[in-house]
């Protein structure tokens, strides 16, 4: 166990954890930030996507020891009032069914638009391809990303 100083959603946080603990579990079990989801544990489904210095990363593969000097953003910190253009677009298109994968989808989409504010459909598809939606809301996700890109 060791003490780690983290910057999460703009706040300094200290956690006492095994250095190999994935950020996914630090967020969920230590810090009560459960919006980031466990899906597969092997970086195949994207449910655990967070931002590290603005890039979308899989928190199930990110050891807490590697997250110390970075700005971490989770779904809880994407916007203060839940009004990030991606979140608004998700509501406008009424995207979610079960909703479990959607935080990861939104974090991936937000990182994409941060880096590429006007992605083509193909760029959206490729960027979102690492996120599985078992309910099959892909057509709505794509439409919502397009709407969000227009409202940035």
């Amino acid at each position, binding site marked *: 166990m060791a003490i780690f100083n983290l910057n999460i959603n703009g706040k300094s946080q200290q956690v006492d954890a095994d250095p190999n603990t994935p950020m996914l579990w630090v967020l969920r*079990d230590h810090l009560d930030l459960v919006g980031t989801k466990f899906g597969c544990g*092997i970086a195949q489904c994207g449910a655990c996507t967070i931002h590290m210095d603005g890039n979308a990363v899989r928190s199930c593969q990110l050891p807490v020891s590697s997250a110390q000097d970075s700005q971490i953003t989770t779904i*809880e910190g994407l916007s203060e009032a839940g009004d990030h253009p991606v979140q608004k677009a998700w509501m406008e298109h009424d995207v*979610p069914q079960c909703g479990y*994968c959607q935080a990861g989808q939104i974090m991936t989409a937000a990182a994409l638009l941060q880096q590429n504010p006007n992605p083509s459909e193909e760029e959206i598809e490729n960027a979102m391809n690492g*996120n599985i939606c078992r309910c099959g809301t892909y057509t709505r996700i794509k439409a919502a990303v397009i709407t969000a890109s227009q409202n940035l």
Partner: protein
Amino acid sequence: MTNSNGKLNRRSFLKVSALAGGGMMLSFNLLAGCKPNSEETLGLPKEWFRLNGFIKVGENGLVTLMSPNPEGGQNIKTSMPLIVAEELDADWTKVVVEQAPLDTDNFTRQFIGGSQAIRTGWTVLRTAGATARHLLIQAAAQTWKVEASEITTEPGFLVHKSSGKKAHFGEMASLAATLPVPEEVPLKEISQFRLIGKSHKNVEAKNIVTGKPLFGIDYKKAGMLYAMIIHPPAHGMKLKSFDGAAAKNLPGVRDIFQIKSHQDDYERTFFDTTSFTDLVAIVGNSTWEVMNAKKAVRVEWEPFSTYEEKRDWGGRKENRTIPGQLESEPEQRLKMAESSKKARTVRKDGDPESAFISAAKVIERTYNGPFLAHNCMEPMNFFAHVQGDKVDCAGPLQKPELTEQALSSRLEIPVENISIEMTRLGGGYGRRSYAHWLIEAAVISQKVNAPVKLIYTREDDMTGGIYRPMYQATYRAALDKDNNLIGFHVNAGGLVEPPLYANRFPAGAVEHYWAEEWTVPSNITVGSFRAPRSNFIAAAEQSFLDEVAEAAGKDPIDFRLELLQKAKDKPVGENNDYDAERFSKVLELLKEKANWGQAPTGISRGVSAYFCHNSYAAQVVDLKVKNGQVEVEKVIQAVDCGLVVNPDAAKNLCEGAAIDGIGTALFGELKFENGVPDRSNFDRYRMIRMTEAPKAIETYFVENQLDPTGLGEPAYPPVFAALANALYQATGKRLYDQPFAKQLEDLS
């Protein structure tokens, strides 16, 4: 509002009525179940007045509607309260929705399954709303000293036109809550609906997109410990011994022990399936620590011997033989081939044997469907806290009432002492009907005497059984010299359950019809999977009909319509469980919307249609195949599910069904080698992703005013065949065995 409630189910009504005087207050948690802006507009009331089990009205006019059923993506938490709000004539912007717990005194049928929540809830929900509205009107009549018949409602308000009096519901709620509940209550005419039939956003949308704790896996209580299980690596194996000494010394580990999820002599009911009864449990302070300890436990397994499992299938008792063996796919296929020769006739019309002898043309084809894992995105989990003879549970499950009984039997604690809070489900698809993990969580909690959250890893879930059965169906069609379908024969079976619905189309439309089924016993556990049975048999039958239409030289839609016309004019046999008129209308709507016969240039299209869960769905799939890769350009679908309660959400469900079906048909597969599943996570179990999803989906509903029927499942089964039939048009090759993607790659 003149429609006297002729169809009112007396029992349901009494159930609703009985609530009014009860005065039981359920926990109110705005954070867990709020509709955006409602409480912000009005603020929280000082007091709630319960008008019945579904409805509480605050003195300030805010209305709380209880959503009785678990929510797993069907959008039931929006559509069920919406139906109550309609008859109550509530202002939807001043409604908060709250998830009801399992409460068998106040609610019926609190489960997910069979796409039946809206169909069976329709009258109950409407009556609940109408009853409360009636009470509010009576209260206003007494207060204003006017005739109740002169009082009307506007959303959220009571109005007496001639005197100009007007009050919001909250002003009359305290009196209304004390008034006698009417014996009968009128329901609205459909033309009077203000909410139903218009699109309303998901009440939980904001909580989902902001990452609020909604799911079972998010559940947390003070002092809660984390638990995981280890189950045998192979079906056919059981626990022999384990050594947890090394693992127990790892940081954060509290305890490691053996648990048993059912007593040995337990007579299982419908959803008590579990692949492995004896498990090793690991309990600790955090998920990661428990996960690590899990890897350090040394476990020995041994094959089990054939045994008898006692089952009570809703009154029908069965002793089912569970063979002790480590099964592999080739032997399973051989056994299926053998069993298919010993099939049992489930329906026979006319003289099919003679029809096939006299036929000018006979077509015979065999279709295969593999085992499938449900792969809910939220891994299996449950919270439980056993304290003496009291049990508190919380988590995602589909059949809480039945699981509660199984838990009661396991712990020997009466159901009255068990409470189950239903969290949102991160997908169900049938998997969460088999809530053995709830029992496991409770047994673990009892042992460690602490609140416990049990979490399965993805691998625990995918290799833990309860799969869609492995299926096979052989079809034969007899055409006469004029290409009329005169004989139809299906022989279908599965390991462990058969896929057949013998009384569905084309039964009733063919003079000589024969349906046979068979099963193969196995220790591979199977269970409900989105649109059970239909999810395979629709794919097989609708692919076959496409081939028969082609052999008859007929357009595939016209061929089906011709058969349906026969079923309308002169139905063959009895018990045909579809309405040929409604079935035809769906196909006609699809034909029109898809511009059938005018496929876009360079596009191959296939069609399919199926009836299940009391609804009708038909689809056209438009696609291209390039270098063995499928590009689905568009899915056009027509659905008849009766009156559509919440159209945009209904479309979302049907879009999801089409994508899910296409993904499963292309990629879904799980096989066994010596009892070991050949894949355990998403690296090898391929799920459809955005680049493979249809680029566009158009969904059209048949407009009618019939009572609503199922919607979560009906659009799923037919799309498999629409895809296969389109792939045939694109490649010239008929696909008989799922998954299709592998075969397409072989073709290129």
